[in-house]
């Protein structure tokens, strides 16, 4: 946890979106998405989670900080030029049914966009049957989903089972706080599931996918 992130967390909690943005500009030397997301915003949000555990802030404070964080990401993405549109592989992202945490998902969507993917970001708490319909209609190459809380694991497993059988046999990416705890991928959908513990990992995976190595079905 750096001082930068702690200061940023305080600005998020106080609802000062403009001050938070100028603070970010004072640290970022260039338009570096990964540094902003992985080294500034994510630690700041983790720190906010710790403040709640220490009973120093309430859930309401967390919600405000999340909204400000969301605003910062939208603002950053609006100002960044999107990469080459040549790729056009398709990805659909959503938070599993019941899951309301979505900031990480939104960041992941932006990383896909940077690589020129056609992105459908469906937001948090998407009912599985909607996800299934969307996957069958749009037939994405990759479906990325996330879960932040342990009691979403059964839902995550069910989602993997259902979505692995949708048209186009998409690769399933699992992210979020629960990603490292997902051990059931093999039995649920053999050879189709990859877990991502952070955005840098996603970035390298996408770079490899671009070259057509080190990935599974959609790219082999």
């Amino acid at each position, binding site marked *: 946890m750096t001082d930068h992130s702690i200061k940023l967390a305080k600005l998020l909690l106080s609802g000062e979106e403009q001050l938070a943005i100028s603070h970010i500009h004072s640290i970022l030397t260039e338009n570096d998405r990964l540094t902003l997301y992985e080294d500034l915003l994510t630690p700041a949000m983790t720190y906010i989670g710790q403040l*709640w*555990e220490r*009973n120093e802030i309430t*859930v*309401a404070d967390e*919600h405000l900080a999340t909204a400000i964080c969301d605003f910062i990401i939208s603002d950053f993405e609006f100002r960044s030029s999107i990469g080459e549109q040549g790729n056009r592989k398709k990805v659909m992202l959503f938070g599993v049914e019941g899951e*309301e945490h979505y900031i990480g998902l939104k960041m992941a969507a932006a990383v896909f966009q940077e690589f020129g993917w056609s992105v459908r970001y469906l937001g948090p708490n998407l009912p599985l049957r909607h996800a299934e319909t969307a996957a069958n209609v749009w037939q994405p190459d990759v479906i990325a989903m996330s879960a932040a809380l*342990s009691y979403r694991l059964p839902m995550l497993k069910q989602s993997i089972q259902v979505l692995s059988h949708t048209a186009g046999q998409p690769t399933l990416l699992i992210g979020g706080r629960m990603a490292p705890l997902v051990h059931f991928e093999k039995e649920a959908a053999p050879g189709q599931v990859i877990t991502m513990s952070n955005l840098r990992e996603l970035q390298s995976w996408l770079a490899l996918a671009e070259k057509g190595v080190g990935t599974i079905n959609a790219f082999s």
Partner: protein
Amino acid sequence: MPFLKTGLAIPIFAINTDLEILKSNDTAKSVLAGAQTILDVIEEESRPKAVMNLLRFETIKALEINALSSSGNILLADLYVAWSEENIGEVLIVEKDKAVQKVSEQLNSLRSRLNDTNFELLEAKETAEELLHENIKLSSPFIEVTDTIALIPIYGGLDKTKTELIASTLSRRAYLSEVETLILDFTAVGHIEQSGLQGLESLLKVLQLLGFSVVIAGLHPQHVQEWNDMNFTLDIRFMKSLKSAMENLLAVQQT
């Protein structure tokens, strides 16, 4: 412990230092999940926070946690604890005011509406891009009017992207045909951008290299001004209108 007899609509527990529930009032039994220890009424993700604070055996004022209701729902609540000299902890779990939850639900629905709108805009943008591309492809049809003459009427404004696309389709199409003369008709062309003009110059070069004789017809007065500024070195015939171009070419053919 007299508090257990009160009819207060707040769940109240007595716990020991192992956090086991010794007693609870009626409200606790009806509102919250059935429990052996106080942790059983606290939702999993809130347990570490509760344990950390309870095991200090100090008075706790308003520790925010998620409690589990008797129907299995999650209730955002404040937990209060006071320890007696006999190491008995009195625990109160007070559900939070719904106002925060309401505002947060409203925020969520606003956010999802924004997301939907964003999504619709994205789809509209993609459709518009496809239409534009299709439109450009159709804006320079290749029409063979006689065995040796082809007419290419160009439609709309000209910029870099459009001239590049026209150049690639037109040179291929012309190469595959038997014609010798190409009439590029500018009657339906609107504004020509500088970048479009440069693209046009390279297109004309390609057509001449392929051995075509090129006639430009139907330029507007403002086009002429722009073409003049271009310093054209190419040998191209200009005709006032498509009509005069056709008459001229046909007359030449007949002689």
